[in-house]
């Protein structure tokens, strides 16, 4: 396994930011940036906090000073060599140091990868791993509480209901196969078709609600988009509050998107500032724009910022249309109200008019964001909290039912239906870990009178 690194502290600005590095190359990865003396000291003294400076090897410029601590394998969170760099909690600093580490061959950790490694190395069991996941994700608990918790417990009942309906169909078929003298197969095809349709619809509903829940689970992401110089970063800063404003502001140079948590009323959401959307002049900027497109695709809500003095241009229209195609709720934010305003724009357009500079209209913007989130994510959608594993099985089951529908229409004999049906039941059973064959037999013998 390679060596991975990630910022371990929450996105946004804080007092301390920690970069965690795990894997066989953990120590080697920082070697170019710290003194040799320090490195040998670190090696000799695991589990000890040591002061250090992180310097650029080319010009010797110190990027940050902080503390580091080394956990030698297997006595670490992941069971591998782990190095933690405790730095100043500035996203710019953290990202630039992370970038330098990546140049030495360290890979950016995938979500949950530290915990996954801990699990694979026997440091924790699956349940523990899942609870870590849950704790990490609890940052959006305020939001989850309202719509999700009330449904927990109902889900297993709903899935259990579908499973037992499919099982009953399977049992009906099986009983007609194993007791041919006693059970006819008339009307089974029609029954099965109806059952597949109904169960499929319920599963589809569950899946559809899931994308909304995912937004809640992973935190509502409000992505700020717009053309360069529309004032996206100033809107970002204004929403964060001026004391947290620490973002580079040179137009057209924002390579990576900047992300921070913000509390609006009682809702915590991730605010994402993106590169400006325009036909990029160079490759670097083009990459930034690609990232913006990705950010848009995963956004919970989009705040599309327009320079009110310029009004909505053709490029803006194209982008807004794109957001609408993704079916993402959006707000149109007209910024720079402090500059000269074309009254025509003001009259003709729906949207919120603010000045990030003077904070005028900011409260309206905040309440409109909350409204949008509430309307789209917090109303009772009947959705449940599923993890990726459960979601995968749900999808597999749905696929099986779709294939089965095809099988049913082609006039194949009854036994062949059981292949898709069984597979669909198996997928649902994987969620709860039940044994299918036993369940079929139980169903047969509790419902049908058979025997010699």
């Amino acid at each position, binding site marked *: 396994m390679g060596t991975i690194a990630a910022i371990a502290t929450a996105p946004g600005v804080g007092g301390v930011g920690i970069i965690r590095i795990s894997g066989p190359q953990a120590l080697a990865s920082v070697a170019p940036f710290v003194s040799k003396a320090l490195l040998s000291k670190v090696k000799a003294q695991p589990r000890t906090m040591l002061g250090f400076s992180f310097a650029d090897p080319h010009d010797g410029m110190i990027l940050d000073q902080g503390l580091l601590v080394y956990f030698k394998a297997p006595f670490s969170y992941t069971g591998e060599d782990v190095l933690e760099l405790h730095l100043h909690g500035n996203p710019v600093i953290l990202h630039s140091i992370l970038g330098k580490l990546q140049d030495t061959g360290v890979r950016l950790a995938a979500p949950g990868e530290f915990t996954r490694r801990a699990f694979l190395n*026997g440091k924790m069991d699956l349940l523990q791993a899942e609870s870590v996941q849950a704790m990490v994700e609890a940052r959006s608990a305020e939001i989850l509480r309202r719509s999700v918790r009330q449904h927990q417990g109902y889900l297993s009942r709903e899935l259990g209901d579908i499973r037992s309906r499919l099982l009953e169909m399977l049992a009906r078929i*099986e009983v007609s*196969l194993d007791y041919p003298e006693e059970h006819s197969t008339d009307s089974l095809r029609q029954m099965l078709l109806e059952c597949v349709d109904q169960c499929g619809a319920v599963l589809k509903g569950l899946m559809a609600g899931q994308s909304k829940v995912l937004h809640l689970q992973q935190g509502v992401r409000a992505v700020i988009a717009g053309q360069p110089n529309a004032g996206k970063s100033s809107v970002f800063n204004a929403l964060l509050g001026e004391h947290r404003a620490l973002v580079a502001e040179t137009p057209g140079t924002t390579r990576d998107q900047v992300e921070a948590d913000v509390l609006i009323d009682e809702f915590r959401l991730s605010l994402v500032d993106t590169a400006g959307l325009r036909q990029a002049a160079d490759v670097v900027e083009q990459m930034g724009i690609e990232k913006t497109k990705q950010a848009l695709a995963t956004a919970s809500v989009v705040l599309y910022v327009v320079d009110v003095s310029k009004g909505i241009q053709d490029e803006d229209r194209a982008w807004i249309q794109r957001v609408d195609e993704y079916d993402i709720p959006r707000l149109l934010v007209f910024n720079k109200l402090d500059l000269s305003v074309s009254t025509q724009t003001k009259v003709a357009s729906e949207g919120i008019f603010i000045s990030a500079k003077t904070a005028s209209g900011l409260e309206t913007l905040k309440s409109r964001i909350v409204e949008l989130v509430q309307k789209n994510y917090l109303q009772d959608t009947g959705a449940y909290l599923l993890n990726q594993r459960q979601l995968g099985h749900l999808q597999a089951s749905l696929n099986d039912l779709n294939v089965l529908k095809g099988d049913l229409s082609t006039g194949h004999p*009854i036994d062949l239906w059981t292949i898709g049906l069984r597979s669909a039941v198996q997928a649902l059973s994987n969620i709860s870990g039940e044994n299918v064959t036993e369940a079929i037999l139980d169903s047969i013998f509790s419902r049908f009178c058979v025997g010699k």
Partner: protein
Amino acid sequence: MPSAQTYQVIVIGAGHAGIEASLASARMGCPTLLLTASINTIGKMSCNPAIGGPAKSHLVFEMDALGGYMGWAADQTALQLKMLNTSKGPAVWSLRAQSDMYAYQRLAQQTVCGQANLDVRESMVLRFLYENEAGSSKRVYGVCTQDGTEYRAQAVVLTTGTFMRGLLHTGLVHTPGGRVGEQASNDISSALRDLGVELGRLKTGTPPRLHRDSINFSAMKLEPGDVQPYQFSTRTEKLDCPNIPCHLTYTSDKTHQIIRDHLHESPMYTGKIEGTGPRYCPSIEDKVVKFADKDRHQIFIEPTGRDHVEMYPSGFSTSLPAEAQLKAMRTLPGLEQVEFVRPGYAVEYDFVFPHQLKNTFELQRVEGLYCAGQICGTSGYEEAAAQGLYAGINAALKVQSKPAMVLTRDSAYIGCMIDDLITKEITEPYRMFTGRSEFRLLLRQDNADIRLTSYGRRVGLVADSQWNKFEQKKMHMQAYVQKLKALRLNPDSPTLERLHVLGISIKKTHALDEILKRPEITLDRLIALGFIDDGLDRLTRLNVETDIKYAGFVARQQEQVRDFQQLERIPLPANFSYLNLTGLRKEAMQKLEKLRPANLGQASRIAGVNPADLTVLMVQLKRR
């Protein structure tokens, strides 16, 4: 000790399991001893006079491919043969024989007594000869009979059916016995306990037997067999089947009322029987109580011999007092005047929890001792015979120091049954169903020989004649498939006219195998219309047709098999300690320690072991 009393394999019990085990061992070249309480009852059909039916016929076909006995004997002694489920898909086609049970018994007796390398002795086993091995393990090297004789062998196969502490119940009267009129064996139970083998208790029942001349068959529906019957065995040269019919009649409210009135005299409902009965072969009492909403149950009146007065009312298993049985039976149309040859009864017996067996059917902790048949908690002649064959083959292979023959879930119904038995905790008699196999489209009757003949050949049980026939068949089959692919239909008017009869049309040239894939087309129809000759026997044609016609489904199942095999390929060491394994839940830990699965796949099928536990096991295995 005289050398005549030393064998390589000893088989105890000469029911359907014992016959297969002893014949296999002897035919594989091991001097074998078969011990039975009575030579006269070798191969007796204690319950219904039938062999085969869904899933059970699959077992019989598979045994035949391996070089087993049952299929051939069933062909020789069939009163009628019927292929069931022919409209429901090729995988569930099932051949069922109504057997002349007396002829079957005679034939089995002749075969066993005439088999070279096999000695048959009438004797009851008292105890095992064994020595202690490392740990708490034992090694069995022979048996001692009630008359004090010692027989030695490197492997012993125990196939004593329902005879271990057998108790027969008719109404509230109970008598010790393994079968009506036959002595039970109490010694083997205690001998097994001495070896540290864990025993449980089960029950099963059998209906009364009716006198043919007291039945008015004209009031019942006639149920004949197939006019052109299929056969179980590829070794059967000529089928001489008289096609004697069964008859169908029904119970009614009146019947059910009488049964309800007498429930207080039923040993099951008064708690006299402690053993658990099979859900799938319920007594008529069970049916009436548990399925009170059903206003009638069908009862088949089956002949037991070519010219014999005893008739078997299939579906009327009961342990009520004899008078109540008769009173209830006389409410059925055609049975108003019926007389019993013998009332029905229930039998309770000890069985060996099969999770104590390895996948060769040798006990995990008792080297040299194999168990097979009803003693392992199963029900049915076919299940018993298949285990007997499997255990007999593996006992012989062990003696010959050859690698074991292990059949897996994806290779045979037998493999599925073996795997079920060693990974499940048996709480009721185990019966084979097609639904127990998750890969049944691949495990059909029609391809049993293709799947398993080479296994039988490798262990030395498939004779040259069977093998040559098989090789020839395979060649013919391949040639036929080539022909189907090579024959091309052009959309010219004579062809289109012929296709029109089949209800289809083509626009461009198609190979015949492509045409066969269409749902409305069968190979028989193509042959009937002269598109291709009938070159192969019917069952082989079905094999060819299925592989072509359902290629998509076959591919899906093969995909599932590949998924399945991933876990099967990860072995769990025999000495693996599950206790105190970090991350394993307590229930899983205990189950794994108790059942000791051979690989991760088996572990996954143990009730109480969940996916999280499996991941833990996987991690631990990687770390070792």
